[in-house]
């Protein structure tokens, strides 16, 4: 059992939770996730870890309300118990020991790149962060990410803050201007990660993306999260979630993520959330 000890509204639909879960923090490493379930009738869903603090025994999560289960999670308040909170799951992401890493966080992904940035800085790697959102007030977690970045770049789709355009555009601009990146890590919506992969591919810049397919157990038991990497089937829960961005079959991943859209619509209709 884990208890919510802090909650912040990052945007209208994006919430940050600090959860007291000492056991889960003990072995946590950058790039991992937790699986949680908030009611006896609830789904098991994976959520990237935004921060872990072994000394305090806390895990920080950022959740965007997009459907039935994320809506139930976002409705949790300080003091609430999370019925099931299991992790850390997935392989820690392999991080370089030197060079210049660029971290790209789209939307809620700005949280998930934070543990990578902190660890890279601690190793002496130069860190550039690129964070994007639709508009200025949707830019999240600047106060968390900026202090662990040597260079911090904001992009907005409407140009209300920072670079006018997508994170992938800003990334290309920085590469062209000779930023000298030696590695790239991107977390965010699938179209954004795919765009990042297409930007870095011609430059041969090693790029990792964090895939977020539908999961049930999160421990390698069901295979529902399978993705095709370089022509081979992998399980995102135990082989990932980070994979070589240039080898992911994005079309298949996008199709599989839409397996239950009809059911989701039904569930949201019943709960009075979403469309």
């Amino acid at each position, binding site marked *: 059992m884990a208890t919510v000890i802090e909650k912040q509204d990052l945007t209208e639909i994006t919430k940050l939770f600090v959860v007291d879960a000492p*056991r*889960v923090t*003990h*072995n946590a490493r950058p790039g991992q996730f937790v699986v949680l*379930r908030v*009611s006896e*009738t*609830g*789904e*098991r869903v994976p959520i990237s870890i935004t921060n872990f603090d072994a000394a305090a025994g806390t895990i920080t999560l950022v959740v965007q309300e997009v459907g*039935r*289960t994320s809506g139930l999670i976002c409705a949790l308040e300080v003091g609430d118990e999370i*019925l*099931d*909170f*299991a*992790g*850390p*799951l997935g392989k820690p992401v392999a991080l370089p020991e030197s060079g210049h890493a660029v971290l790209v966080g789209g939307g809620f992904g700005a949280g998930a790149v934070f543990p990578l940035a902190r660890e890279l800085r601690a190793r002496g790697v130069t860190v550039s962060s690129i964070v994007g959102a639709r508009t200025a007030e949707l830019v999240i977690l600047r106060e968390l990410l900026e202090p662990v970045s040597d260079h911090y770049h904001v992009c907005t789709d409407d140009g209300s803050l920072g670079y006018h355009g997508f994170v992938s555009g800003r990334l290309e601009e920085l590469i062209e201007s000779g930023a000298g990146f030696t590695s790239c890590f991107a977390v965010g919506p699938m179209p954004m990660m795919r765009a990042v992969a297409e930007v870095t591919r011609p430059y041969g810049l090693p790029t990792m993306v964090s895939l977020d397919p539908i999961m*049930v*157990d999160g*421990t*390698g*038991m*069901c*295979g*529902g999260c*399978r*993705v*095709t990497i370089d022509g081979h*089937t992998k399980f995102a829960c*135990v082989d990932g979630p980070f994979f070589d961005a240039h080898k992911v079959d994005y*079309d*298949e991943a996008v*199709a*599989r993520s*839409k*397996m*239950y859209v009809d*059911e*989701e619509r*039904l*569930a949201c209709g*019943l709960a009075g959330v979403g469309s």
Partner: protein
Amino acid sequence: MPIVYPHKTEMPALEPDVRRHNWEEVATGYTEARAVAEAQRCLQCQDPRCEIGCPVNVPIREFIRCVALRDFDGAARAIRRRNLLPAICGRVCPVEHQCELHCVILGKQEPVSIGRLERFVADWQRAHPSNGAVEAVARRPGKIAIVGSGPSGLTAASDLAQLGYSVTVFEALHAIGGVLRYGIPEYRLPKSIVDEDVEHLEQMGVEFQTDVIIGKTITIDQLLDEEGYSAVFIGTGAGCPVFMEIPGENLKGVYSANEFLTRVNLMHAFAFPAFDTPVLRPKKAAVIGAGDTAMDGVRAAIRLGAEEAHIVYRRSEQEKGARDEDYRRAAEEGAIFDWLTLPTRYLGDEDGWVRGLECIRTELGEPDESGRRRPVPVPGSEFTMEADLVVIALGTNPNPLVPQATENLDTDPHGCIVADTATGATSREGVYAGGDIVTGAATVILAMGAGRKAAAAIHEYLTEKEKAR
């Protein structure tokens, strides 16, 4: 027409047309009169060979004699001496390959229905709980960690708790039971039975911790070095689904049997949207494989409303792995069996949904390494089968999480933990293993037998260690 079994006393069951539409337990069990009648078929052999066929050596002759004499309490006590989960075993043991295979009347008649009698006795005891409280046992020093709450873990936990050790069972999922919970459907093993057995263990002092993934949340080394456990039993099972790696396997609508059954059993997806986890509801389902899990899959597909549900198997009926009873039940419920049929690819539409299978007919050639005749594709016999749901039930591999996270724990090339067959001892001192994580996918009762042997070995190990202090 149901298949007729003239010699065994029939066990009452729900009619196929009724049970196709619900998830209730199909076989309703013997009445007292039927149980006594069946028990009277037992010859009470001087040398009961059936007991040799039982991996946990249940005193079969004795318990059947008690049933014949209507001493059901005595029968229950006899079984419990060797098997703490008889209500489960009486339902899921492949008896025709174990105890009943050795019954002396087999050949001349149907064997005595040992499985149904075991189930009857276990259910009788559940309905008539004994007045005697659980006997308090003297506590012993020593904390033991059990990794995984499936059949081997529950058995090891029970034996060690009875010896007076402090036992903690760690389960990765949110509910206890392992394959008994996520794999075997309600209509074959009601979950209330698993709940009762778990409650019984809790009353004996066993502690259960769910949502703890050993190898991730905490490692075996941390259990031993930081959390003060003096021995560990690993019973993490064969949880990783096998795929054929043929084209189209990742289309929407193609499930592993593990995922399909976990959604239905553990997550109650059959009750969506009252439960939040969905499962696709098929019109035409194809289940690949012919073992117990395949029968579970095809019968679940029928209950989810499939108009047609096929078993597609590359060998013949004779080589199928499923228990006779479940095969017969699936046939009664309308499953269609495509023997000697090998899928070669899955066909999808432009949105990535599965729409069918391309198959080729096979014929049986020489025996292969499994001892069964090898299926050989027949050239020119290709054909297409429609399906909007495919369930792949071709077996499972050992779960790699614990071996990956544990140094110096030897595994074989298949990823199974190497353990002594008599004791479950691994390459690490104080670390024991048993069940499917050692043998590869096998049966509930074999896993229970392994859990029992390991518990005895752990007791011996800790006793020696205590003496040496």
